[in-house]
């Protein structure tokens, strides 16, 4: 592919990536939001975080088409002490480092 092929492809991808990020914010930031929408949106962060995280802990992917449930992934085993550490300390940096260390240790058992 030539330079202009890449520019066209990535320009197009950039546009369809940017618009979903920009349009809701540009529109909603200058509107008086109804209370129900504020209540609903305030539950979005916890829902998104949980939805991003849970499948990576509980689902095994052997190939793109084959997903199966699992309670034995190292990601999940390590997540338990990491979660307890986060609950006890409320330290973001500490949790990241503890999680990394435990995951690194877990590699020797898997």
């Amino acid at each position: 592919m030539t330079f202009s092929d890449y520019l066209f492809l990535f320009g197009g991808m950039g546009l369809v990536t940017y618009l979903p990020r920009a349009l809701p914010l540009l529109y909603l930031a200058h509107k008086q939001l109804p209370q129900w929408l504020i209540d609903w949106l305030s539950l979005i962060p916890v829902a998104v975080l949980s939805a991003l995280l849970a499948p990576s802990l509980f689902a095994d992917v052997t190939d793109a088409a084959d997903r199966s449930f699992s309670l034995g992934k190292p990601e999940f085993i390590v997540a338990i002490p990491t979660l307890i550490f986060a609950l006890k300390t409320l330290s973001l940096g500490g949790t990241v480092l503890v999680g990394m260390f435990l995951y690194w240790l877990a590699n020797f058992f898997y």
Partner: protein
Amino acid sequence: MNQNNDTNLPKQSDLLQQGAAAAWPICLGYIPIGLSLGVLAQQAGLPWWSVAMMSVLVFAGSAQFICVAMLAAGSSIAAIIFTTLIVNLRHTLMSSALAIYLAGVNRKFLTVFSYGITDESFAVNMTQFKNGQWDRWRALVVNHLANSVWILATVTGTLVGQFVPQGAFGIDYALTGMFICLLVFQLQGRIYILTGLLAALISVAWYLLIPGDSYIVGASVCAATLGYLMQRRYRSSK
């Protein structure tokens, strides 16, 4: 343009320092992911400058991985762009939720800010906004630090990625660890815990049953809606 709109600009060194303090887990997590994207891109025959161009113009990790895989498989440009749109639609949710904290901010700022809304920067900034002590400039620093590291990591991956050992120091777990802790920060009351549990349950079921990435938007919307309905019922029954 009225320049006086932004006179409340805080001191720059504070901004950078506090932005970096909030952003470093993202940056750490982006390094292994960016490197492996670079390696895959290089194996698929993409030159390093095209990876730089992609990370600047697109800045969306999962879509970039899919793009490289589709290019390697010989997909058409239209198919790749359409897939990117589908994968990134989830950001409409995050962009909407950010509007609560960025209400009334001028459109020029929002135009720049929107570029850097990713799963990770969203999670970090929302947590900081919720705790107070945060403003849009610090949030912008988080976005752009994460973006800079991402660009550097992906380009470095195309050049030297194959020499970096896999899984060094458990760095692959950095983003998971960050998400776990940010989730804990969000659990400020029974309704949040309940919504989080619902989202976990629904997302896993959705992920197992439906191919693709729709589980993120699907489970988030379902769980937030159920949580909202339960909250309303609880309030009206009091």
